[in-house]
Structures are given as C-alpha cells and as structure tokens.
C-alpha cells in the first residue's frame, strides 16, 4: 500500500470519526436542551388520551424541545395531587367541578385547557324502570362514581330542583355488573366506555339522560400544571400545550394511525374498543366552544354556571378565583394551526 493510499485511509477514518463525534455531541447537545417533563393521565393508556400519545409518537413534543414521559394513572392514584405536588409536570385530570374543588382546598393546580367540551357522563336506566326524566330520580337509587363525578350528579339534581336527600345516591364501582344485575335503578356511564360496553353485551333496553339536557355542561379532562411551572417556566407550559393540541388535531385527522399509536402504548387493548372510544372522544372534544374557537378551549360561561350551582347546593363552600384556576393565556397563544378544526 502506498503512502498516499494509507494517508487517504487515515484521513477518511479520521473524518468518519470526527463526523461521528460531532453527531454524538449534536445528539447529546439536543438531548440536554430538551426539557424533561412528565404528564400524568387520569387512567391507563387508552384512546381517551390519544392526542398525547400521538404528540409523543409523531415527535411533536420533541420538535417543541420537550422530552415527555407519559405516566398512566389508575384507580389508586390521584393525578391532581401528583401534578400539584410537582411530582408530575402536567396532567390530564378531572374537569370543571374537580378543578373548582381542588382550588377550594388550596391545591396550586391550574387548568390551561379543557379537552372534552360536553359532559362525557350520562345516566342510564332500563326502559321498564318507569323513570322518564331526571325528575323521576326522586325516591330511586342512583349510582355514581365518587371520584369527582358525583359533583356532576349533584349539579344535575340542583338544576332540576331535586333535593339530594330525596334521592338515594350510592357509590358505583367501576364495573357495570351491579347495574346489569339491577342492584340500583340508575347508573352513571361515560359515553366513551361504559355505554359502549353495555351495548357490546347486548344491553340496548336502556335510556340515557345527559347532564347537558338539564343545563349542566361540565368540561372534562382538564390539561393542568402547577402554579410553580407557570411562574418559573411559562415557555415550557406553552410548548407542551401547543404540541398536545397539535397531537389531538392529528389524531382526529388520522384516526386509524392514532389507534395504532395508542395500541402500541398500552397492553392488552382491543382495536375495536379503542376505535369506538376515539370516535366518542372526538364528538366530545369537537363540540361546544371547540367548534368555533378550537380544540382545548375553556368554556368560562359554563364554568361560572357550574360554580354557581355547586355553591347553591353546598358542593363548594364559596367562589374560587376563576381567573387563577382557569388560565386561558396559554391557550390563547396556541397557534391557530394547531388547535383550529
């Protein structure tokens, strides 16, 4: 081998080495620049949170300079507490009533957007129960989840002018079995899960009462962060919200792909369930003010109404600082392209 050839080899080797080194520096450089944050969900991985999984899988978070860990929730943990304590940076937790109650008990939790625009809960009863309207709940046993969902029932009863003491309110487990066995006359369902599972089991002789028909609209799946994050790293909060809403918009425009991403993120999920769930989540998220203003919009008018009715029947001691609880400034700054339908 001639000297020149050898030098060529050495040089190309060196060049390759240098390129690799610079690539590595680049990689670690950008990794160091990416802000490590986490988002805590209110339940395990499923299509209810498709937008977040899509934003992660499609690199929207990464492009926004965020290194996001998605932490699933479960029945044993309170996502709101974890975000308020700073254990998780962001969260998809509770909804209108939950936020009001969190603030009433001084949790430093701030809602920066609302995912679901219409109340995702409904009350079901059998066709032969003799219950034809919410007014007929009087004297009947009505089951609901005591994980924050009970406040929606309280609001509905208040709006219909029924004293709570006239209704036998019982705690509902997260299985619909007792309702199937007719242990209570009315049960609570979410439109994106329990209603689907009832129908899947061939139970179609049921009727639905929706809180929105009683004049109670509560937004659910609040996107939250802590007061501290807002004060110390508002730009990170903004980037997270932009990318999350962009993820949701993409999920609704590419639903099959979004379901694929969700299925890969969880384990043991059924495609059919997740497709049905995503359809219903889309209905809920693109309704109400989202139609005109965009995904994630906070409906202050409905929040004020819910607060007033909660105070009226003692579900809330007094008014909370709504401006501090629901901070719209970030949502307002989300580029229209990322949120407008």
């Amino acid at each position, binding site marked *: 081998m001639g000297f020149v050839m050898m030098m060529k080899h050495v040089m190309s080797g060196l060049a390759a080495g240098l390129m690799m080194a610079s690539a590595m520096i680049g990689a670690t450089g950008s990794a160091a620049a990416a802000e490590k944050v986490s988002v*805590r*969900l209110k*339940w*395990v*991985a*499923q299509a209810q949170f498709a937008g977040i999984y899509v934003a992660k899988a499609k690199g929207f978070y990464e492009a926004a300079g965020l290194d996001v860990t998605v*932490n*699933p*929730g*479960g*029945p*044993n*943990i*309170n996502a709101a*507490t*974890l975000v308020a*304590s700073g*254990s998780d940076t962001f969260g998809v937790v509770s909804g209108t009533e939950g936020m009001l109650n969190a603030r009433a008990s001084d949790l430093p939790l701030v809602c920066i957007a609302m995912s679901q625009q219409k109340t995702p809960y409904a009350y079901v009863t059998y066709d032969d129960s003799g219950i034809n309207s919410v007014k007929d709940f009087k004297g009947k046993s009505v089951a609901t989840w005591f994980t924050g969902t009970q406040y929606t029932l309280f609001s509905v009863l208040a709006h219909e002018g029924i004293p709570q003491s006239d209704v036998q309110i019982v705690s509902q487990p*997260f*299985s*619909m*079995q007792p309702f*199937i066995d007719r242990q209570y006359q009315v049960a609570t369902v979410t439109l994106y*899960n*329990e209603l689907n*599972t009832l129908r*899947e*089991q061939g139970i179609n002789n049921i009727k639905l009462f929706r809180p929105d028909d009683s004049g109670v609209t509560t937004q659910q799946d609040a996107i939250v962060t802590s007061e501290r994050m807002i004060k110390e790293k508002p730009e990170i909060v903004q980037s997270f919200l932009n990318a999350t809403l962009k993820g949701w918009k993409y999920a609704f425009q590419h639903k099959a792909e979004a379901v694929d991403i969700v299925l890969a*993120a*969880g*384990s*043991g*999920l*059924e495609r059919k*369930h997740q497709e049905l769930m995503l359809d219903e989540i889309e209905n809920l998220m693109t309704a109400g003010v989202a139609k005109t203003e965009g995904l994630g919009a906070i409906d202050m008018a409905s929040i004020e109404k819910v607060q007033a009715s909660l105070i009226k029947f003692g579900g809330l001691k007094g008014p909370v600082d709504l401006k501090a609880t629901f901070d719209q400034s970030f949502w307002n700054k989300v580029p229209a392209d990322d949120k407008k339908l």
Partner: protein
Amino acid sequence: MTMRGRILTSPPVTVLLVALAWLAVVPLFNIEPRYLPPLGDVYAEAVKLWPDLLAGFWRTFLETFIGFIAGALIGIGFGTAFAYVRLLERAFFPIFVALQSVPVIAFGAIVVIWFGNTILAKVVIALYLAFFPVAVNTLRGLSGVNPGRAALLSSFGASNWQSFLMLALPSAAPVIMTGLKLGISLSLAGAIVGEWFGDTVGLGVLLLQALYFEQVTRVWVLIIACGLLGALLYGALSLIERRYVWWQFD
C-alpha cells in the same frame, strides 16, 4: 396413603378435575358467560392475549420476586434484631404494627411520588407487604428456642454467634418458612395492587383494563394467570422447605 390416593390428590390431577368440572358445569346448568364463561372461550382469549399475557406474567413475577427477596431479608433482619435486643422490639414493633394496619392504598401517592412509575414502586409495595409476616415469624421462631438447649450449648463453650447459627436459626427455620410462605402470597398481591398505581405492563394492568372494559372472559384468564404465578412461587418455596428445612423442632 395408597399410590392411587396419592395420584388423585396430586396438584396436576386436581387442576384437571377442576377443568373437567368447569367443562361440564357451564353447558349443564346453562350458566351465562357473564358469571362463568366456557373454558374453551377462556383458552381462546388467553391465546389471543398471549404476547401481552406473557410480558405481563414476567413483569409481575419480577416485581413479586424482587420485592419478596428484599422483604424477606429485611424481615429476617428485623425479626432477629427484635429477638435479641428487647429495647428495639419495644421501640419499633408497635410502629410496624401500626404501619401494617394502614391499607397499602393509602401509601399509593407517596410511593408514586418517591419512586415514580418505575418497577421499583411495585417492588417496594411487594416488599412492604412481605416483610411483616417474615419479621413476626422470625421473632417468634427465635424467641421459642428451648432455653435448656441454649444453656447446654453455652456450657460447652459455644459463643453467642455459634449458638445462633447452630441452635437458634435451625430451630426457628420452620417458623420463618411459614412467614416466608405468607409473605410470598402477599408480595404477589402487593405487586398487582402496585400496578394499579399506574403502569402499562403487568398482570395487574391487564386485569384493570379487563375490568374497565367489562371483558369477563379476560378477567378469568387473568385470575388463572395470577393463580398460576402464586402457585408457582408458593410451590418453589415449599420445595425449598422440604429439601432444606425438613426438620420440625418441638
């Protein structure tokens, strides 16, 4: 026991008998799948779920196993310390009892805040549930050492350490084994409950999802999987006991 009796009561045969009864009972009494799905359906569901089931089984096994080993070591450590230092027993034992009476759910948020959604969080819950029965049984076993034998050993000039290794530990071992067998089942329960604090893999996660989506057949698959895991762990301990701790002190 006769040979035939032994075969009839061996675990595989019992399992087979239960399976046969299941096969017969469902069509015989026309049981609705919501109450008990046909065994064939359960099998088909298990096949469908196989990769997730296998991953979940392995993950839950790891959480249980690591939590159990750590809990056993800590339990034996504390039990021994309590048996020899009465002051420690008086100071710490009531705290342990108080901790044990707090349902593990109450620690959920704390465990998640401390350990995040890592496998460690589940291991810690498994450990927390396992260590107490081990500690109590170690204490009981060591306190039950025959004083006459202890006096005899020391009259031969045995040191405290020798007497611990040669007399106290062997005579406590059967009682400690009982604690360990209690502990391993609790570890499994701890790991499964731990997965309900938020995770994506594990038998507990699959169980939670099956309950949430009302997939009764799948719930049965998971009941069997959890039972199998528990039986394997318990069986392994029994095997160790029979081979190494076969004696029984009075």
